[in-house]
């Protein structure tokens, strides 16, 4: 690597600017400079980077958060720039001070960089430089440094001597018992990770008590993080040990006084289920799960409901059906009539997933009434979630079983007062069309699809045109010619210019799937007629449409109809029309 002194003056200048801008008044310039720190370091060479640049950076922690964040990130990739792995430890001091700033994202980034650098240390360097850094952080005056320490212990643990290992475990223990809830939270969040690298004998002797303490902390926010640690640790024990060491604490978490803790249990239930294995799941978790489904707090019920499919899928195959039928389904049945719409809508988004598990007969007998019930729910989101998951049930019993209830539900959603709900149902139309077949669709739903073209919300009209395209792709050109296109063309004669524009937008999209013959015969004349529209917006959209659909047309149509039309539009009184017309005209001349 070239040293700065031997470079010519010319090439020094940009680097000099970068260095000076590290201290510019403008944050953006400082940020740019920090992001090009590697360029500066390269120009300085490894010696000066180590002896001057890094010490300077160590002291610049008074900057804006975004500059510090960029710095913390850069330093994680600096190993080669300070002379390779044998010098990686010189990067520790700046990161150590960054790991103490008050801003969480900066600290986290500094910790992340330190974690990347840890494995690059030789075993000696790890004990000479890295471990002391961790110790200083863990014993720092302010909680900010102690929280950072909790994330660093696990990455150096495996490679240090037994004596140091003991010290590190002790440090971690003191972090778990820190006075401030922030440090206990940070330690609880890293407990699972550390447990994975610790020798089994300490796991039982030292870590289980730590976990138990954190899981019984007075602060809700600590207990809820302990749950996650518990899940990670549960995976490390054999069955009997697990039962003996941890289950009591985990069980009590499912009945915690704080709904936030129960919420985390509900949210992480599937992970817990995987960690504890089938036996404990059957004995403990199923009961816990059904009580979470009946929790007094709606947030907890909603979280539990959303895990229904995954939880049931992960039950062991031999007892699955029996457990679902006897313990879970009764809760689900109650839940369909829940007071809270979020609970119902969470349930509706996964309930269909039960039918492949339970098979045709059970679905018909037990689930179908629930689906039908939900299709009539007061809240559109619930209905929408059921409809959007029809696929699962289609495979088991076929969608026909539902069609009688489905239709009114769809029609009602299609005219819901909230446009986002209407948008939701439009997006499922192609799917429904595929499952219901063209006859049923024509009979019941095609008029709906057409009516969306004249919705008063643009997003709906736009979605409606896209929907038509997908339907045409599904049902073919003949269907398009007989059903869709006549209706689209009709729009060109509407009083409202917005609908006339919708007609053009629909043509834009339909031209390609419909192909040359239909486009030329049925749609092109309409486009040409609209070129004489009274509204300028319609006219320049004609130009845009022509520019869009010309690849589909043959050259005679281009020469006979399109070209004269555009020529006329280029002479239009409106500037926008002229602009778009001449843009299209040039394209078409090229094509001819």
């Amino acid at each position, binding site marked *: 690597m070239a040293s*700065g*002194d031997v470079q010519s*003056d010319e090439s*020094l*200048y940009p*680097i*000099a*600017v970068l*260095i*000076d801008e*590290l*201290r510019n008044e403008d944050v953006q310039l400082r940020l740019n400079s920090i992001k090009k720190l590697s360029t500066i370091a390269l*120009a*300085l060479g490894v010696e*000066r980077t180590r002896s*001057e*640049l890094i*010490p*300077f950076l160590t*002291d*610049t922690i*008074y900057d804006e958060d975004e500059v510090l964040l960029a710095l913390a990130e850069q330093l994680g990739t600096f190993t080669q720039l300070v002379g390779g792995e044998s010098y990686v430890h010189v990067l520790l001091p700046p990161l150590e001070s960054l790991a*103490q*700033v*008050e*801003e*969480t994202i900066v600290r986290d980034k500094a910790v992340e960089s330190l974690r990347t650098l840890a494995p690059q240390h030789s075993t000696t360097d790890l004990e000479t430089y890295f471990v002391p850094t961790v110790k200083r952080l863990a014993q720092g005056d*302010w*909680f*900010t*440094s102690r929280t950072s320490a909790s994330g660093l212990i696990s990455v150096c643990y495996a490679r240090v001597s037994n004596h140091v290992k003991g010290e590190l475990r002790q440090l971690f223990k003191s972090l778990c018992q820190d006075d*401030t*809830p*922030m440090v206990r939270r940070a330690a609880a969040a890293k407990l699972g990770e550390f447990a994975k690298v610790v020798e089994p004998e300490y796991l039982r002797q030292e870590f289980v008590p730590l976990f138990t303490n954190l899981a019984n902390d*007075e*602060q*809700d*926010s600590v207990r809820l993080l302990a749950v996650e640690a518990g899940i990670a640790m549960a995976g490390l024990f054999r069955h009997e040990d697990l039962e003996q060491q941890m289950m009591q604490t985990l069980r009590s978490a499912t009945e*915690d*006084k*704080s*709904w*936030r803790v129960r919420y985390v249990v509900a949210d992480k239930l599937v992970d817990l289920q995987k960690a504890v294995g089938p036996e404990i799941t059957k004995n403990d978790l199923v009961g816990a799960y059904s009580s979470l489904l009946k929790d*007094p*707090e*709606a*947030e907890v019920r909603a979280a539990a409901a959303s895990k229904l499919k995954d939880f049931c899928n992960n039950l062991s195959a031999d007892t699955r059906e029996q457990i679902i039928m006897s313990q879970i389904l009764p809760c689900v049945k109650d839940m369909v009539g829940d007071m809270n719409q979020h609970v119902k809508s969470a349930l509706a988004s996964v309930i269909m997933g039960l039918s492949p598990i339970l098979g045709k007969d059970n679905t018909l007998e037990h689930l179908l009434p629930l689906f039908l019930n939900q299709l009539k729910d007061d809240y559109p989101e619930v209905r929408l979630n059921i409809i959007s998951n029809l696929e699962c049930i289609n495979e088991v019993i076929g969608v026909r079983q539902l069609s009688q209830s489905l239709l009114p539900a769809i029609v009602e959603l299609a005219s819901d007062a909230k446009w986002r709900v209407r948008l939701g149902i439009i997006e499922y139309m192609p799917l429904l069309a595929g499952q219901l077949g063209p006859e049923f669709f024509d009979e019941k739903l095609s008029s709906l699809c057409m009516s969306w073209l004249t919705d008063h919300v643009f997003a709906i009209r736009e979605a409606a045109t896209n929907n038509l395209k997908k339907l045409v792709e599904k049902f073919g050109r003949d269907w398009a010619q007989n059903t869709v296109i006549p209706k689209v063309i009709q729009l060109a004669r509407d009083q409202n210019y917005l609908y006339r524009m919708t007609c053009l937008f629909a043509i834009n999209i339909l031209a390609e799937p419909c192909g040359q013959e239909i486009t030329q015969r049925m749609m092109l004349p309409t486009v040409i007629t609209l070129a004489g529209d009274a509204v300028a917006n319609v006219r320049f959209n004609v130009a845009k449409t022509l520019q869009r659909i010309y690849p589909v047309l043959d050259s005679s149509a281009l020469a006979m109809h399109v070209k004269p039309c555009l020529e006329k539009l280029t002479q239009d009184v409106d500037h926008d029309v002229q602009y778009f017309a001449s843009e299209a005209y040039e394209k078409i001349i090229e094509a001819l």
Partner: protein
Amino acid sequence: MQNAGSDDDLLEWYPSQVKGPVDDEVQEADLISTIEFNENGELLAVGDKGGRIVVFQREQQTKTSPRRNEYNVYITFHSHEPEFDYLKSLEIEEKINQIRWLKRKNPAHFLLSTNDKTVKLWKISEKTKRAEGFNLRDDNGIIRSTNSITNLRIPIIKPMELMVEATPKRVFSNAHTYHINSISLNSDQETFLSADDLRINLWHTEVTNQSFNIVDIKPPNMEDLTEVITGAEFHPRECNLFVYSSSRGIIRLCDMRQSALCDRHCKIFEEPEDPTTRSFFSEIISSISDIKFSHSGRYMLTRDFLNLKVWDLQMDNRPVETYPIHEYLRTKLCALYENDCIFDKFECCWSPRDNHLLTGSYHNLFKITSRLTRKDAIFEASREQAIRPRQLLKAKKVMPSARRNRRDEINTDTLEFSKKILHCAYHPTDNIIAIATAHNLFTYIAKDSSSLSS
């Protein structure tokens, strides 16, 4: 009324300092709107109607002056600016309604300040080092020619004179339709609440784009409105508990563990009304203007127009102690109603060991009450006394029969209602109090109380 003798546990006070303008012809923007000590009492923040915050720092301990009772200006900064809500055509005042210090997390200090609509998180930090040396400029700031750069210079860090900076770190806005009356930090040290007339929101100190509504007392029809929220505070240790007070004199205790929305309180503290004292003004004067948990977390202190009340968290049917503050005003409620004084919001506070209570009154009087002996003393915050710091404050008596020639007696008919002490603060560990009159901040220090903790 009890007199303050030296034989009971009431403290005697020396005037310490007066801050603020001398003459009374001062600007509206200088009106003090809130005062607050930080966690260890080393800093004292004062907010005003002009959106400014002045932070005072307690004198540093040195060999020459072991008693550190004086507070000096540490930093002054503008926290809130006047704004205009274009959607509602409303002016948003810059007045600082409340300040709350965060527990210290690194060498910098952090505080939350709020006006009617927006809460801000400020960082107050010290800078003692500065980088020196540029490449494109020489040491005198003269630009060097491009050709003369033969060597790259890395700046060198040099010590410099102490500089204190206040930087806005976060702005928590757009969550309140009504006026924010209180903010309070949770003991988990990561969340805080903000309460307006009808709703209470919960925030994370690091997240500005979302807050959770935890209490909403807005009735579907505003005509059914019977009360508004006047204050809210988290329990000092139980992270799940908070209380809010209402204009009907009711305190509700809520448990955030029970459910996400705390509309249903788990305990309600309410004293049945005494039918003998009922009048047209009963409802107005029962409104709670301030609520504070004791340091121990066992009691709550509330202030209504005429009384201080101490409530035990275990007893919800009546307060355990009631201290009339200015009973002599009961006959003057009509006049106080007419000049709007009846709506004044007096604050109250606990002493470090929860054994004394402090609150303000009219005529620039403030009252300190001993819970042990139930004795109290009324003092007047005045500049004349403050300039004689060696002399103990003399307690005043307010009575209808006060004689003119007695300086320690004040006639109830000569009380000045335009002079009032709404804001007061008690040092968290030492017997030092801060009292705000309209524009001035007074500090007082108790006799023989260099530090309680020692």
